[in-house]
């Protein structure tokens, strides 16, 4: 790999440093994903038969819509929970910031599967949470917290929170701390000052977080399988069945392709509505 003749050494240096990461991404991500997606059109034979199959059997569309709905439900819940945490991190003392960063990162040290099983044990009918609530008389009968949409949302939100908190935090850090007092001094109510001044300025982080949550959630597989009920079937589970049980790479590829297209489409729409610049900034 010679440096480009136009820019010479000075221009090529930074690019060369990117090369290792680019190679890893190419070998470990782009190539395998590209091959899987290509199989949608080539496996078991060239043609569109895999897409026609998806179109002809209503169950695939049904599960796809279901997946988008679940992801759409998880996103605002995560955003609302993350917002105050990010705010405390951005504007609290260095001590608070360190403590919160540590707490937010803890879940990353545990595997998703282990955490999901732990959530099952905590939330089940005879689990500690229900037992406690029944014993102190808050409820008469155990609440159905898992094997339904509640379970999927609880499981998903706790894993996705860091993906919103960190972008939000970095957005909020850049907000001039004198703006809010200024708005209040000028006579705005706290709510108005927040809605007109603070919230718009934190929007880039909020949108980045929302995007990450929504995209990650679309591909979820372990959480709906362990914490959901029959009606929380998601596309990830169908893709797993296609490969693991049927050995059908073509249909799995086609499903992945459609999921990718839907994700890209929805993101495009979202950014058209809210403004791509807000995220890119």
């Amino acid at each position, binding site marked *: 790999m010679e440096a480009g003749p136009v820019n010479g050494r000075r221009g090529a240096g930074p690019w060369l440093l990117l090369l290792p990461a680019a190679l890893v991404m190419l070998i470990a991500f782009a190539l395998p994903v590209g091959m899987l997606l290509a199989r949608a059109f080539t496996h078991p034979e060239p043609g569109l038969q895999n897409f026609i199959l998806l179109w002809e*059997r*209503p*169950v*695939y569309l*049904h*599960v796809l819509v*279901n997946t988008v709905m679940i992801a759409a439900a998880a996103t605002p819940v995560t955003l609302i929970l993350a917002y105050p945490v990010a705010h405390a991190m951005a504007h609290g003392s260095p001590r608070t910031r360190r403590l919160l960063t540590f707490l937010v990162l803890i879940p990353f040290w545990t595997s998703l599967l282990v955490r999901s*099983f732990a959530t*099952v*044990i905590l939330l*089940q*009918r*005879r*689990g500690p949470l229900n037992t406690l609530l029944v014993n102190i008389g808050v409820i008469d009968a155990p609440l159905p917290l898992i*094997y339904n949409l509640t379970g999927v949302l609880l499981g998903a939100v706790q894993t996705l929170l860091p993906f919103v908190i960190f972008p939000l935090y970095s957005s909020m850090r850049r907000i001039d701390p004198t703006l809010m007092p200024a708005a209040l001094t000028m006579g705005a109510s706290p709510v108005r000052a927040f809605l007109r001044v603070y919230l718009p300025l934190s929007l880039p982080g909020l949108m980045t977080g929302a995007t990450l949550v929504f995209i990650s959630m679309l591909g979820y597989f372990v959480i709906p*399988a*362990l914490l959901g*009920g*029959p*009606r929380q*079937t998601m596309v990830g589970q*169908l893709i797993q*069945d296609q*490969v*693991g*049980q*049927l*050995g*059908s790479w073509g249909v799995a590829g086609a499903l992945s392709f459609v999921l990718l297209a839907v994700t890209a489409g929805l993101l495009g729409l979202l950014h058209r509505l809210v403004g791509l610049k807000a995220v890119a900034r």
Partner: protein
Amino acid sequence: MTGSLIRPTRRALLGAAAALGAGATARTARAQSLRGTTLVFASWGGAYQEAQKVCYCDPFAAETGARVVQDGPMNAARFRTMAESGAPDWDVVDVTINTLFSGAHDGLLEKIDTTVVDTSRIAPQFVHEYGIGCIAWSYNLAYNTRTFPAARRPTTWADLFDMRQFPGKRTMLDQPVANLEAALMADGVAPADLYPLDVERALRKIDTIKAQTIFWTTNSQSQQLFVDEEVSIGIILNGRAYDASKKGAEIGIAWEGNIQSVDYLVVPRGSRNRAAAMKLIEVMTRAENQARLANMIAYAPTNPAAFASIDPAISPWLSTSPENTRRGFVINAEWWRQNERRLMERWAAWKLAR
């Protein structure tokens, strides 16, 4: 790549070493005929593979001089990719009945060499042209023994659907396999008349308990549901029920209509150690080795002679004990192979329906 470059060298070296030791008796030389060969055995990991190593692979290595490398866990997609490439990393693999039938159908397996493997030792329902059954297991009706004490214990699949006599949460698999068979038997179909399955009839039957049922996706989950008493009755693998009971869970199982399945030993197409692989399978089918494994982990042998040396306390938990095998049947894997896609789609659609 590196492996194949190094291996002949290693083998040549060891061969030379063996030739130098000419003083060894002819008997040792013959017995240690596979010295220098390295076989890769892949299975499902955990306590099961550990038992397979001790009861099958170690005796094989001691007898032949071959080295057996343990690998895994077995994964159907990984197995298929490997066999399709024609140069598999694995030489002997423990697979499910589904993988055996789809692999045999798609030409991904080596034929079993019956001049090496004595198939007459094995119960005939577990012998296949491309694989030999090594353990048998079954889907059983299980129940909480405290909720349902001796006097009113569920005994048949019909009891799983009887919310009046056997109330409480239940559990079934999150896949149609075994669920459909159980539902049809509960609805009055005799095991002999099950296939081809009347899928819609079975689903209508499961509809009657759908709202009360938790559908498990992993075996650990099925076990946990009984251990934590989240469910009082349901479908579980016999080995998992045994394990839960050993760990103190209040669990019992019924054997009426037990739905048997089998793990098969197969050799993926293109294995570089085909002959040695067949020899390992032969060692795995011996009664004494299968009995040891059953005593260690309570998986049922496919060689009936093994029962002579199986602990009488474990025997009642095994699908192939003379008493239990009579009350069950082997799942029709060929029918499932032919209908798998349609049923997977139907199952997903059924789950989403209100």
